[in-house]
């Protein structure tokens, strides 16, 4: 290489490095940093929900008009508690139990999805008259209480899908209940947890791979920017699987992962859903935060049923039944009694 071409090449390399470094330095990537003021926190919350919430169209919510209404309630001198109340009220317009605003002293929680309906569950009756004493009358593992009723019907009470379930635990439960004529799975008042636990249990009740739903996610800030739905399949467990009839008991307080579990179980051949419509909550929630550090949780990825219908507002049972006042007076649970008759037919 001659000296002149050597210098030309050297200069070109230096020039190239300078141009690229200049381009790099000039393009900073950052998000808009709102002020930590009532206005700044309001705008951050409204924008986060605007860009990430997934049910605007399904619920026919005009989020721009919500901004107009609630921005007038924001004042520079308002206290943190007043700000929290206004922001919570704004979030309640989403009618979503997965939407929370969380500060160090309060967590907002939309609860009309169950408060306006019959409870359909009496914990005292179930505990005292059906389960009995924990020391002698029933077993508990992984948060699942289980026993065999006198009429040879198995009963599983699962209070929270947040309690992790192990495959070994499920083997033990199902082997113990194997002699039963049928099985009741009581998930009333179960407000959710993790989908993984719901799937792990449901896998024990199918012998074949089944399509049980779809999931979408947002691909951008627009209200309608969604991915094409991804199929959710239930694969049978490689371990002990239940082959007899099952009744799943539901009420309005079955929410989130429990709603997912009920949606999964209703596609299985030997399973009957009995009770009240579930509470819904089909949006997989994400978290974000405000300039003042308050956390906001919101639905970001809708889970659909196998026909691509929304299940955000709940799943109707195969057999709709409420607790009767007469049964309750006689320490009977109408849903459990109906399920026992159904399984013993």
């Amino acid at each position, binding site marked *: 290489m001659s000296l002149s071409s050597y210098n030309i090449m050297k200069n070109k390399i230096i020039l*190239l*490095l300078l141009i690229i470094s200049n381009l790099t330095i000039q393009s900073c990537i950052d*998000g808009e940093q709102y002020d*930590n003021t009532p206005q700044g926190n309001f705008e951050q919350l409204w924008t986060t929900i605007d860009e990430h919430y997934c049910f605007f169209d399904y619920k026919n919510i005009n989020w721009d008009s919500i901004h107009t209404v609630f921005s007038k309630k924001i004042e520079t001198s308002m206290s943190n508690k007043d700000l929290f109340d206004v922001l919570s009220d704004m979030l309640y317009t989403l009618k979503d139990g997965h939407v929370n605003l969380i500060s160090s002293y309060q967590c907002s929680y939309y609860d009309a999805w169950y408060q306006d309906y019959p409870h359909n569950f009496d914990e005292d009756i179930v505990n005292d008259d059906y389960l009995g004493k924990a020391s002698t009358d029933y077993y508990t593992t992984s948060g699942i209480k289980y026993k065999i009723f006198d009429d040879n019907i198995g009963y599983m009470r699962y209070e929270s899908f947040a309690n992790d379930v192990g495959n070994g635990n499920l083997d033990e439960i199902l082997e113990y209940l194997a002699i039963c004529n049928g099985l009741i799975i009581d998930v009333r008042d179960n407000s959710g947890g993790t*989908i993984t636990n719901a799937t792990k249990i449901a896998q024990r009740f199918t012998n074949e791979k089944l399509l049980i739903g779809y999931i979408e996610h*947002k691909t951008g800030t627009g209200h309608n920017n969604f991915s094409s739905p991804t199929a959710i399949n239930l694969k049978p467990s490689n371990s002990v699987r239940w082959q007899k009839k099952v009744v799943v008991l539901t009420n309005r307080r079955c929410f989130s992962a429990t709603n997912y579990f009920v949606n999964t179980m209703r596609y299985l051949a030997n399973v009957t859903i009995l009770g009240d419509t579930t509470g819904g909550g089909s949006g*997989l929630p994400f*978290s974000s*935060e405000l300039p003042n550090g308050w956390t906001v949780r919101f639905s*970001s990825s809708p889970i659909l049923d196998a026909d691509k219908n929304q299940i955000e507002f709940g799943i109707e049972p195969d057999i709709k039944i409420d607790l009767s006042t007469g049964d309750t007076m006689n320490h009977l649970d109408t849903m459990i009694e109906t399920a026992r008759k159904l399984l013993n037919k």
Partner: protein
Amino acid sequence: MKRNNFLERLIGEFLFLFLLIPQQIQAQTDTVKTNRYIMRTMMYGIGTSNIYDSYLSPQNYKGIDFRISREAMRFTKRGKGKVSSQNFLQANFSYTHNRANNNNTISGLINWNYGYHHQFPISENFKLLAGGLLDMNGGFVYNLQNTNNPASARAFINMDVSGMAIWHFKIKQYSFVLRYQLNIPVIGIMFSPQYDESYYEIFTLGNTSNIIKLTSPYNQPSLRQMLSLDAPIGHSRIRFSYLADMEQSRINNIKTHTYSHVFMVGIVRSLYLIHSKRGKPLPPSLRVY
């Protein structure tokens, strides 16, 4: 040439050792080969970090950054002996806080660069280096309060253009080396979930579409630059460095940045390999173990 004086002194010390080596291997090691001279540095640093990841939070998180790095440079036989290789491995751990100081993130990244530079001597004491590096990265950012989106994985591979300037100078009888290096990714691939896609959907349901994206300075305008000074202290050469690690991305509508400014210190070791893959090993009496 001052640098070569230093080199010759070091190499001379090694040659002195060679006199002790039996005659049969002297014949193979009697010529100093520049590609066997290695500059190796282990450095430890502390600095600041500014982390932003819109998948986790719209807020910037700022805090402390701990870093460790290991670097080796040597000449190769390529380009008539004017091409050097650089092997640079660094790992960092950051603990950062939001503006309200009521939530934290922890993050870590392992970065490995390997590549070659062509050396262009400008004067006896000053030279420019230009070349390219393979730039591999793996790490995470973990937000301690989030629920279904608690963490963001970092995985990206780039081809970098790299430039370096090295200046040898003396103050009184003490010799110093000042170096500036700039690495800029020009093309690569990066893992990223889609905008609001959960890791459950990716890894449990297996929806892997659009999670590996091609990157360029348009969607990943990043750079790493380092300014270092090698100074003689006692019988050692100590390296003091300032490292600016500016990583940014705008992939699948998710914006991220990690701006780290780290001061590092370590000992420079100059080695001369006397056992290459093709050569014979030292006799056991001269080995360290």
